[in-house]
């Protein structure tokens, strides 16, 4: 019996230097995964091949696709989905959840401070230059009180498990973090493919995200509005996350709009409808700050709404997330997160930060330039995994090139030790077998005046290329359904 169970994992190779999510140090399957392992082991590889291709076409048929920028032939791609779920037991999840909320709250207080009294800068805890040299710092946000005092209504926190078995945060995404629709779609896909497995585990639902998001959006309505009219604004169907924008609008039961569907009159925002203009009160915006309002930011923006910022400033419409939040998800600010948490909350950080070297500091710059091969070099203001160099995979010439880039503009780069992301058995098409692949976890936190909600699941991203550490979908990553177990 045991032999049959192990059939599909028989060729699974365990690299002893990596932290495997399902096997312990002695090579035994962890208790929490045992049942799942038994069930999956009862299937043949051929079953997997079939199920996998079914799941793939289901994603295509539902239009759950994205596009990768910078490629000549832009093609719709699916975010590859892996049928073997990741399990996070309740005690570990508790840490992740508390840690995610702690970071969101601290970042929110930080944003309030830097757009008001700026005490953390006056006390030299965070350097002034770091904030004001950030392209995401908006002078126009100074003195504006967003409804409920909330800036980062929605945060996406990228967390990894290092080989020491501890969770580390890699970055906080508080502009327009995407990926939550995949969390829900992955669950649906897995249920369709292997419904039976859910009978053996008490797993938290992930389908309550939309109701929590709508609840939040309604709670930050402008003053004097009784029942707010909420909308989702998208850059349009060519945006890589368009599926998600439409998915969230649909599941919340609100309109999905583009800039040209809205207009501003006397500092109020209206939506064009066939019944005439309809006032809009809360906008879940999925377009970047610089495109929001051509009168205030990039004048060439065709995606935004002229006059939107004045309406926001006057308190007649709420934008979620608030403009100017990007200054706090700058990777250089990330490195001050432990100090930021202590300063505003008087607490010790629950989740670890990865040690970061600032190239803007001469002594650290020197260390970075001398040790590129042992470091990950990241531009501070790019998202989506663009521009990242991983030292140990670079040739001599490439190292020289990176060194030159850093020297030209040290402020633009930070460096971190190469973290060893944990690995998880992942079904690999090519070899038709399960192999170890690196994974991370993006949690989704919703923050309101009296509300803190972390979606009990999150997006486990998988680097599908062997040995690759970058899990972003734009860099060829896939994803897994993520189960958070009930107590």
């Amino acid at each position, binding site marked *: 019996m045991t032999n049959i169970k192990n059939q599909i994992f028989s060729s699974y190779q365990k690299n002893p230097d990596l932290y495997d999510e399902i096997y312990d140090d002695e090579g035994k399957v962890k208790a929490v995964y045992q049942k799942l392992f038994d069930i999956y082991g009862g299937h043949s590889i051929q079953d997997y091949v079939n199920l996998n291709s079914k799941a793939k076409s289901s994603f295509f048929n539902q239009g759950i696709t994205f596009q990768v920028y910078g490629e000549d032939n832009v093609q719709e791609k699916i975010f590859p989905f892996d049928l073997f779920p990741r399990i996070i037991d309740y005690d570990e999840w508790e840490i992740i959840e508390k840690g995610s909320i702690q970071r969101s709250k601290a970042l929110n207080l930080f944003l309030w401070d830097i757009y008001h009294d700026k005490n953390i800068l006056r006390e030299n805890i965070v350097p002034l230059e770091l904030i*004001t040299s950030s392209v995401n710092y908006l002078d126009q946000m100074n003195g504006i009180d967003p409804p409920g005092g909330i800036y980062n209504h929605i945060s996406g926190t990228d967390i990894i498990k290092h080989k020491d078995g501890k969770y580390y945060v890699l970055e906080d995404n508080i502009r327009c973090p995407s990926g939550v629709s995949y969390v829900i779609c992955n669950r649906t896909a897995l249920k369709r493919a292997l419904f039976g497995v859910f009978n053996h585990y008490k797993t938290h639902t992930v389908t309550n995200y939309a109701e929590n998001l709508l609840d939040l959006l309604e709670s930050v309505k402008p003053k004097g509005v009784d029942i707010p009219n909420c909308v989702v604004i998208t850059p349009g169907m060519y945006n890589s996350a368009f599926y998600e924008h439409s998915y969230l609008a649909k599941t919340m039961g609100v309109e999905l709009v583009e800039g040209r569907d809205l207009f501003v009159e006397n500092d109020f925002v209206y939506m064009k409808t066939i019944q005439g203009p309809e006032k809009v009160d809360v906008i879940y915006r999925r377009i970047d700050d610089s495109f929001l309002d051509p009168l205030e930011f990039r004048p060439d923006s065709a995606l935004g709404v*002229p006059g939107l*910022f*004045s309406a926001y400033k006057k308190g007649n419409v709420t934008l979620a997330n608030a403009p100017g939040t990007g200054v706090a998800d700058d990777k250089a600010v990330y490195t001050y997160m432990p100090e930021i948490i202590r300063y505003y909350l008087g607490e010790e950080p629950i989740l670890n930060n990865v040690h970061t070297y600032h190239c803007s500091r001469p002594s650290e710059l020197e260390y970075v330039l001398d040790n590129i091969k042992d470091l990950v070099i990241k531009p501070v203001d790019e998202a989506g995994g663009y521009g990242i160099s991983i030292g140990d995979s670079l040739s001599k010439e490439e190292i020289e090139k990176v060194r030159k880039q850093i020297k030209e503009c040290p402020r633009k780069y930070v460096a971190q030790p190469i973290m060893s992301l944990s690995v998880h058995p992942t079904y690999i098409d090519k070899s038709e077998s399960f192999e170890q692949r690196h994974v991370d976890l993006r949690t989704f936190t919703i923050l309101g005046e009296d509300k803190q909600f972390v979606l009990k699941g999150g997006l486990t991203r998988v680097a599908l290329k062997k040995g690759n550490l970058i899990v972003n979908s734009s860099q060829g990553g896939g994803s897994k359904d993520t189960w958070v177990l009930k107590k």
Partner: protein
Amino acid sequence: MSKEYTVTYTAENTYENWVDDAFWQFLIIPEENETQDLVSIDFTNSIHAINQFSINGYGFNTIRLHTRKKFKEISFKATFKIIKSFQDNTRTPSTPSMEEYSRLASTTDFKVDFEKYLRETRLTSIPNSKTGLFEFIPSLSIYENLLALNNWTYIYLQYTAGVTDVNTTLDEIIDKKHGVCQDFTHLFCAISKLNGIPARYVSGYLNHESGFFGDSQMHAWAETYIPSLGWVGFDPTNNIVADHNHIKVSHGKDYDDCSPLKGVIYTQGSNKTSHSVSVVSQQKAAQQ
């Protein structure tokens, strides 16, 4: 003392093809402040679009228009009546020396409070090789240094209309040594900031009756922050301290924050724009 002005701003836009939808923002209303009282505003446009008054991201009053009728030509006319009060005072104010000032300016609080106007911007950055053009003298007061800078800028650049535009960098202006009020102001601000004195770009109107430079357009000058005095205006285009001839509309880090006219126009083809400004004064008897 006070003086009453009538300022008239007109703009005419002509488009090659029909415009279906357009949105304009005018940042042209004189600011209300200690020395300026705005008595009346009259704003009209040739296609009878409704005027909307709105405050922009930097807190200044704007007039906005949203048209929905098709048009090929549109003209705007704004008339403002302003009373400008002033004191006849030609004495040089006493201000701290640069040495004293540097101590104050090195505190974190000062840097945080004035960071916005110490920050280098697209239009106020000088390449490293050209930063030594004008040196402040440590033993002189801030005010004397700024007067000297005002005079130096006035001499260094020659007033020439039409050779620079809103995208011309200081790098180029310094080489070619000519420009208009925007360029004089950006150069003055940039050098002031390099020396640690907060400086901001001011957009407004100038009474040309005394023969000042600035043709019949909106004018630009600078304001610098001097402890004990506050924000003090310098007009390097005319080598004068800003006075009752200067009617302020807005200020910002540079021209980009103060652009008088912004439009989002949905049309194809070319277009022509012309603006003109006139300032007429009427000396009023002392009202004390």
